[in-house]
């Protein structure tokens, strides 16, 4: 009995030790932090959850100081709260998203991912009052798309957000379902070959592009 017991204890202890070393060494603090952030992002059910994810990424970013990705995700998550909460003051949300994204931009210049997010934030502001904001914000949004394409024409998210924008523009104005289909198809094509630089780099959007295309094909 004794032997069995001690053996069991030893086994348990060994396992605990192994677990500890893995936790301590296999992942750096930053990676673990980002991992936790992604988990929060994925599991967010409400604007509050999403806001918490944004705030967490912001804390990671502020602590790390030299990494643009946590600022990018902080801006991205904050931007999503604007859509998740229908009562949100989108201008206020956008101001904060822009603020965070600008911090990412300081660390990472001319990146298509950042331009794409800029476009998304601008479109969110446009929807507050499309009639009067169309001119200024519409031009700004298409400007970001141009910049994104210039930085990396093969980024699939560019065509996803461009399609999301243009499918709602009436056909007579150079938008519409057909234009949307073309852009979503292109986005899906590019997703097939797209490889993020690291696991932490943005890789979202494939499902959305497929859903958007399916909805248009209905």
């Amino acid at each position: 009995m004794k032997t069995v017991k001690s053996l069991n204890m030893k086994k348990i202890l060994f396992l605990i030790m192994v677990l500890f070393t893995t936790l301590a060494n296999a992942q750096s603090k930053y990676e673990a932090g980002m991992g936790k952030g992604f988990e929060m992002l994925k599991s967010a059910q409400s604007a509050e959850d999403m806001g918490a994810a944004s705030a967490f990424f912001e804390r990671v970013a502020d602590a790390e100081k030299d990494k643009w990705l946590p600022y990018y995700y902080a801006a991205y998550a904050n931007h999503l709260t604007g859509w998740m909460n229908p009562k949100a003051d989108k201008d206020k949300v956008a101001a904060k998203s822009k603020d965070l994204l600008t911090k990412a931009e300081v660390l990472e210049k001319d990146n298509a991912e950042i331009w794409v997010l800029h476009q998304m934030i601008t479109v969110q502001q446009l929807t507050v009052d499309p009639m009067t904001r169309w001119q200024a914000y519409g031009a700004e949004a298409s400007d970001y798309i141009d910049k994104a394409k210039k930085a990396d024409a093969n980024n699939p998210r560019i065509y996803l957000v461009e399609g999301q924008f243009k499918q709602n523009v009436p056909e007579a104005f150079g938008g519409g379902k057909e234009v949307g289909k073309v852009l979503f198809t292109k986005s899906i094509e590019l997703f097939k070959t797209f490889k993020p630089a690291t696991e932490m780099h943005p890789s979202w959007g494939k499902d959305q592009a497929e859903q958007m295309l399916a909805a248009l094909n209905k």
Partner: protein
Amino acid sequence: MKYLIILLSSLFILLSARAQVQVLGSVRDMKSRILAGANIAIKGSYDGTTSDSTGHFSFKTFEKGVQTLVVSNIGYKTVEQQIDLSKEFGPFNVALKEEISELKAVTVTAGSFEAGDKKRAATVLSLLDVLTTGGANADISAVLKTLPGAQQVGDQEGLFVRGGAGYEAKQFIDGTMVNNPFYSSVPDIAQRGRFSPNLFKGTVFSTGGYSALYGQALSSAVILESIDLPEQSQVNASISTVFLGAGFQKLDKTKKSSWGFNYGYTNLWPYFQIVKQGVDYFTVPEFHSGDANFRIKTKGGMIKYYTTFATSSLGLRRPDIDSLVLKDAFGLNNTNWYNNLSWREFLGKGWKMNLGLSYSTDLTKINQQLQDQQNKPVTGSTAWMNLKTYSLDNTANLSQIKLVFDKRISGISVLRFGNEYQYAYNKSIYNGFSLPLKDHYYAAFTEADINITNELAFKLGGRLEHSSILKKWNLAPRLAIAYKTGPGAQFSFAYGDFYQKPENNQLMLTTQLGYTKATHYILNFMKTTTLQTFRVEAFYKKYEDLVKTFPSINNDGTGYAKGIELFWRDRKTFQGMDYWISYSYLDTKRDYLNYPGQLQPNFAANHTASLVLKKFITKINTGFNFTYSYATGRPYYNIKYETSNAKYVIADQGKTIDYHNLGFSMNYLTTIFKSYAVIVASVTNVLGSNQIFGYNYSQNGLYKEAITPVAPRFFFVGCFLSWGVDRRQDAINNNL
């Protein structure tokens, strides 16, 4: 076993080292109001949280010892606080101070309507609004007339604001004054503005109390800001019932510069064949207009040049009021050339420069003739009848330069100062008799925008002017205060003195005159949300030194105007519909020109109201726009010289019938020949209401004739095409 104990104890140590502590606290602003969503962090770690809806926070951390707690929230100054996690875990109650920011800071709104697409400003009207106001036919002034403060005057051009005459309102493009903003006057027929609304990205309609940067306007300043670079190169063409046009705009590949030109030809002959006019046009109105521009992006700014050249001619004949058989023929030829060069630049270290140069020349030739039934010139039976035959050539040149510097002093407070110089040359040749007039006008101005907090702001300024023709100086103080009472709600107060030179036709008779003067006091309350605006404004305006023309030409005229105005715009309540309502109450009297005493002037109605409705139906790509304007009757007088008493008396007076006007327009958006096209149809006075703007009297005062529009309605159908940039983007409604 020993082995096991060591292991266990080391594990225990490890675990205790990793023990978490709970940190508690709350976040509020300096007025103890709850701040939700603030980010709380331990500096250098990932630990932290956000404050909840009650402003409270709590989080666990593995950090130990003395740490820095960082509390941040957008729009507030970040607070860092030292905490010792081995001793205290809270509650840490942190108060954040609001940053004074342009987005939140109160701005002075008394007296002015900001229009245009400035992103977050108190936007009231945009370019799209100008293009889609029913019955306004894309005329900026016609749209401004649907705002409170402006009168529904239909027999002469100009904006008649708060008891002020048309010439008391001035227009400014990129800072410099425009000499002839409207097409040349025709008796009893209001003319359109010369400038297309498409040229401007922003319009401020100021009905009083405006900035020290603007002078020589007693009543109102319309401040127009021209567009910057176009989005892309384009070709456009237009065809309508009254005009043809084509244009080209080229944007450089680097998107750093652009140039372009437009040409338009207007001829009302075909239109007059279909829609009969109340007067006999012997020269059908015909206009040529060409414009050209270039725009260059500089290091921290933009250089813009715009020029327009226009010629127009028309001639019309009306029965003479003093005779049963004779007619008055009025012929007009006009040439106008306008140039505007502006340069704005950020100079760094909080300095900004605005330079404006403009030159315009305008030549108007008027031929007025008394004619018989065969339309042959005749000589009248009396001397005063013969005054109805004359020729008048009027030249008006204006050169000006205006330089303004902005210096950011602290926070968002700004000090602004500058100089302005104008050289005006006017010459009238009346029946061969020449009357030239030259004036060197100089002005220096300074103004400070001081934001004490986000809730309280001052605008304090002054303007010093000198006119060589009057040989007089004037100093005009300006003051405005704005106080924010809640989210989107604020009070403003504005005070200012405004001076204006007498009109040229008065100065041609004598230069022994001084400035005319108005003093404005304005109190305004405004409540805005993104899609709704409510505004109420009360004003008192005192007129002094107005020009009297009898018994001699002097500055003894006086007057006042007071009233209250309401404005409500709503784009929220009815889905996809935008409407605004404005109402103005005006009480005004003035003694000027040959008035025998203080009278309510014939351009002022006591009550004016407008309802503007716009609805875009995405399904059919068509917008429908209605504008209904109403004004109570305006007074009219027959001010007659009584030889026996050697003075002017009111021989007759009355009030016109109420004014009603329902305007309608629709815009259909489509594609034609691969171009983006907008088809516009519009009609003024849909209901055919009888509109009377006043009366003309015969010389003996026994007969009066109503001044009415030359046709009950004006119809317009046009098609605007553009290749390249999608201009119909302008018209996309709530379909995003």
